[in-house]
């Protein structure tokens, strides 16, 4: 079995994100970038499956600018066998990514495609679903547990009501939840070895995909600041304020 894992380079989750003064987006200059956290879970799961002898090859892929190579290298350092970077400029929307992945799936013929359930930068949570539709493959989203039973995957999903267990036939798309596993650390010798693993670089136009955004972004702004609280002197005052000012009772 062969697993394709899609990863994305995003602003590190510890960084306080700042909106650009002109409202055209967020500041990425001088900001620490990292791999999208649930993508780390996707890579970890693929590596675990390979270690259990149930997969033979893991290919890590990303769509993004030149520097996104770092994110692929990180996947290689924790156990992916080779990498692919599809070079693009500017914003790439989920549909364009899904189309790129479709092309790569046609070429690589993986049995499973793993990725994070969503990226922490745009929070779209669409790429896996769109890819599933484009390929006409079954999808298992928000996976918090994956069991491989021959040509069937048993996937536990985290949903609002609790946990849902489903079975999907392979080939399939799985999008991974943070609770799926604890991603391992890349060891120093493995980081060195990862530098020597093959990494193929293509552009979206090599694949014949137009990545021009279809959504026009009008404005990005910071959420309104919360007003400071006040102290009230008595219960009566509190009730009166709740009634007359907040109008909640």
């Amino acid at each position, binding site marked *: 079995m062969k697993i394709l894992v899609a990863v994305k380079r995003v602003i590190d989750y510890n960084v306080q994100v700042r909106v650009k003064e002109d409202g055209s987006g967020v500041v990425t200059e*001088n900001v620490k970038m990292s791999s999208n956290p649930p993508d780390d879970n996707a890579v970890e799961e693929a590596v675990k499956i390979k270690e259990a002898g149930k997969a033979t090859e893991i290919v890590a892929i990303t769509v993004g600018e030149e520097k996104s190579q770092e994110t692929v290298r990180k996947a290689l350092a924790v156990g992916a066998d080779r990498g692919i970077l599809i070079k693009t400029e500017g914003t790439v929307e989920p549909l364009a990514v899904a189309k790129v992945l479709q092309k790569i799936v046609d070429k690589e013929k993986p049995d499973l495609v793993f990725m994070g359930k969503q990226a922490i930068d745009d929070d779209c949570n669409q790429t896996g679903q769109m890819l599933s539709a484009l390929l006409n493959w079954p999808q298992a989203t928000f996976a918090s547990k994956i069991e491989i039973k021959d040509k069937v995957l048993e996937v536990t999903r985290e949903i609002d009501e609790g946990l849902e267990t489903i079975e999907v036939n392979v080939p399939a798309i799985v999008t991974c939840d943070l609770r799926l596993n604890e991603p391992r*650390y890349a060891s*120093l010798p493995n980081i060195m070895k990862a530098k020597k693993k093959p990494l193929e670089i293509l552009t979206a136009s090599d694949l014949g995909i137009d990545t021009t955004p279809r959504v026009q972004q009008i404005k990005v702004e910071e959420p309104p600041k919360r007003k400071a609280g006040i102290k009230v002197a008595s219960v009566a005052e509190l009730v009166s304020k709740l009634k007359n000012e907040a109008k909640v009772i």
Partner: protein
Amino acid sequence: MGRESMDYDVVIIGGGPSGLSTAIKLKQLDPNLNVCLLEKASEIGAHILSGNVFETRALDELLPNWKELSSPIKTKVSKEKFLFLGKTKSISWPTWLLPKVQQNHNNYIISLANLCRWLAEQAEALGVEIFPGFPASEILYNEDGSVKGVATQDMGIDKEGNQKDSFEPGIELLGKVTVFAEGCRGHLGKQLIEKFNLSKDKNPQQYGIGFKEIWEIEDKNHEEGMVMHTAGWPLDNSTYGGSFIYHAENKQVFLGYVIGLDYKNPYLSPYDEFQRFKTHPSIKKIIEGGKRISYGARALIEGGLQSLPQMFMPGALLVGCDAGTLNMPKIKGSHTAMKSGMIAAETIIENIKENKNLSIYEEKFKKSWVYEELHAARNVKPSFSWGLILGIIFTGIDQILFKGKLPFTLKHKHADHETLKPANEMPKINYPKYDNVTTFDKTSSVYLTGTNHTENQPVHLKLKDPNLPINYTLEEFDEPAQRYCPAGVYEVQKENDVNKFVINSQNCIHCKTCDIKEPSQNITWVTPEGSGGPKYGNM
């Protein structure tokens, strides 16, 4: 259980200006050397914090074509100011009356973090192997006592010291020579200085704590290339310190404050002095209408030549501020740190190829311009132990009339942890409330640093005696850790009328001040799990 080990010609600990310059110079002198460099931050530059007005002297020697290599050195200093601040007034001091070391017209306003990122690219292009996210946590010795290399920190250990599922053992990195370039108060450098008695016959090292904020300010208040320094308010005559305000590119100002850690009043809060400083009319008008976008703090070396330890030992060298090469009156350490690294590289080549003893490092260092600079600078900082006014008068005579050539050397008498007076002998200081416009509390400041440490790991701030903070330090000094820590790591909390000392180690921004200032030297800073700590951008 055996750890894996890897052999290199040279292992360098720390990806700041000194370590990176060592690496680059080594590969320039011999492209075949195997050189690796470890950095505890998640990426090069993420733990670097500096003013920074950069003198290019060392870089001109190291990479003479730096202008063609798209280096992040762009903003030339165009204007200079020096202000003495009173509580509400200020007096401008003509810059031609400043000692030459404090004139900056050939220098550049830079982000040292970005310079380091760029230096790392140059080093990697030369074949240096750089490993960010791997703190060196342990020194390894040969049987003959010489330094053999270092071990990286184990990853995936829980609070109780047990291995988690994600456990990844550390690696031993062995070098013919190991270079320690951890910066001020490196935790391994400190051990080496003690073990090899490198500070024998030297004065105790002197430190300062430096704060920096980056503000995006209004166009009308921004003068790209302007460098301003202040002395005086809010500090009293007996406390050493001052500010910097550098107008960098993109409407940013780098605004900061340095306070000598030899201050005496345990009630003094360096953080609050800095916050209060920004409310001075001369400063407030610059940042008014602007937005604070970054915050950070780091200890720095102030001891100069008198406190500089021997920088060589069997199998290893100390470079940059892991030894202490900062030039205090110049308020610059980057160029000297870089040069010390370059000299170290030359030494190592002769050591490996011609079997020369590493002690030639000292001879080379003494012949270099770094030594000349530090020698001329040596009397400035100790003269300020007589107070700001006498310090300035003496410095004028020493630096302007005699150009640092007075035939005597003043001494640093006390280590910084010895200078605090008992709390009951000193006045309490009432700091103004934060207004969340110009001044901010520690929590929102630390938030801007992007600091994170993986949860459920051992506390990396070790107490030699866990009861001392409450039983002694609280009573005697009102537990000054609550105030000298710029990140709110230390708190004294009352629980059922019993005082408890709390260490919020996840907030630690790796400044090392606690390791320096704790009056009984009860706190030891050790490396947390790799990638932990701040994620500074262009600091």
